[in-house]
């Protein structure tokens, strides 16, 4: 990558984002990549006068990540998207779709993870459980090699 990447810890993330906003940076987007069974890499891309700056946060699966949507409202959709696809839970989201921006309740695994996470049980539990739906073939395509572990429910 041509531009510098600044590593950041979860507890300092919102403060760093707020500093960039004061400096006149706009949020472009977030890019999320699964690193291994336990961790996920999130890059926050900011732009000012067509020059990019990136923050890098390595998050642990199953642990909540602070949302920057109270600082940058533009983050709300992409953070919800990451909740759907990677199973991370963002705390303090401006609008929280609770893992169902794209996916339906029947989707039982996080579709963009090779080491797949089991999505939290939803209102469908009971008479028509998420696992039942998966057994009927409604779950997203799996590559067959993925493993599955439970994660806590998104806030």
């Amino acid at each position, binding site marked *: 990558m041509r*531009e510098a990447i600044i590593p950041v810890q979860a507890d300092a993330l919102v403060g760093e984002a707020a500093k960039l906003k004061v400096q006149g940076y706009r949020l472009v*987007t977030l890019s999320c*990549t699964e690193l291994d069974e336990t961790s996920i890499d999130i890059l926050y*891309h900011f732009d000012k006068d067509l020059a990019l700056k990136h923050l890098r946060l390595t998050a642990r699966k199953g642990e909540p990540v602070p949302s920057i949507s109270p600082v940058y*409202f533009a983050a709300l*959709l992409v953070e919800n998207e990451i909740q759907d696809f990677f199973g991370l839970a963002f705390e303090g989201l401006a609008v929280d779709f609770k893992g169902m921006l794209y996916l339906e309740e029947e989707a039982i695994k996080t579709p963009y993870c090779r080491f797949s996470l089991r999505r939290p049980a939803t209102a469908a539990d009971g008479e028509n459980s998420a696992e039942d739906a998966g057994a009927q073939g409604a779950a*997203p395509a799996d*590559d067959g090699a993925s493993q599955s572990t439970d994660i806590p429910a998104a806030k």
Partner: protein
Amino acid sequence: MRKTVIPFGPQHPVLPEPIHLKLTIEDERITEAVPALGYVHRGLERLADVRDYHQMIQVVERVCGICSMIHAACYCQGVEEIMGVEVPPRANYLRVMWSELHRIQSHLLWMGLFADSFGFESVFMQFWRIRERIMDISEATTGNRVIVSVNVIGGVRRNPDAEQLRWVLNQLDWVEEEFRRLEATMLEDYTVKKRTVGKGVLSKAQAYELGAAGPTLRGSGVAQDARQIGYAAYGELYFEPVVETDGDCYARSKVRFRETLASIDLIRRAINRLPDGEVRTKLKGKDNPVGETVTRVEQPRGELLYYLKGKGEKTLDRVRIRTPTFANLPPLLVMLPGMYLSDVPVVTLSIDPCISCTER
């Protein structure tokens, strides 16, 4: 006052693609808009796990039909950067030519749909009639009308000769002449102005802060266009972004109208300065991509960003695509409150929403 919630979409006469907006209204005015996505989500990014980095070109071209060439150009640009591949100058100029042809046909398509959104069907027909000529140019120079498939890692796969390029220039003269005939109607007509001026206003500060992209950003007075970065051959072609300051539907349509003329001009200059030589660098002996990059280009709807990561294998570790409509949805949610329900179709179309891109 009593609140009513009205679903707008996913199927609506004005929407070419499915998006759902949950609109809360009081009397006839919108007080809140909440989007719902997922009707055309295909999980294309995930295909990077099973398709090698060459095959992914065909995948990213199918993110969106209207700007397929620009998706592929952005992806190839990123992989070329990771692999250290230098693209021949002629290929860079040809990428500009085909990118601008895509921009023109996309803007013409949008202007037709936009006119249709407020019932001006004859203008819709006229813009689409002109657009057909651009599709003919694409077919003649690439072999395809929509998904043109000209990009490869290291350049392009087609090399139009001088006679073809002269024909392209002649066709563009016809397109410009016909297009300018619609200027008075699109920009001065009473009905058009009545439906667009002062509707869906987004201030300069809001557009910037909410991460708007493309004509939505420039229509609010922010002079930012990814082509200013100078990728492909844009750095060698004089280029200035088209900017309007009112931030309403009219300003956004004016930006697209003027950008169409600017694109015609860019193609002419690219063809006139087209260098001789090869159009493709051979990758023989190159290792698989290792490393990560963020690369950006300007789509018709705005800035397109690709994050690519390779670990030295045939398949990439990650292909992440941020499309301009995805960036323009938060601004849309700010534009709609305060609008009459009858203005929702016009305001929604003013960001030129591409849901196929957005959901990937």
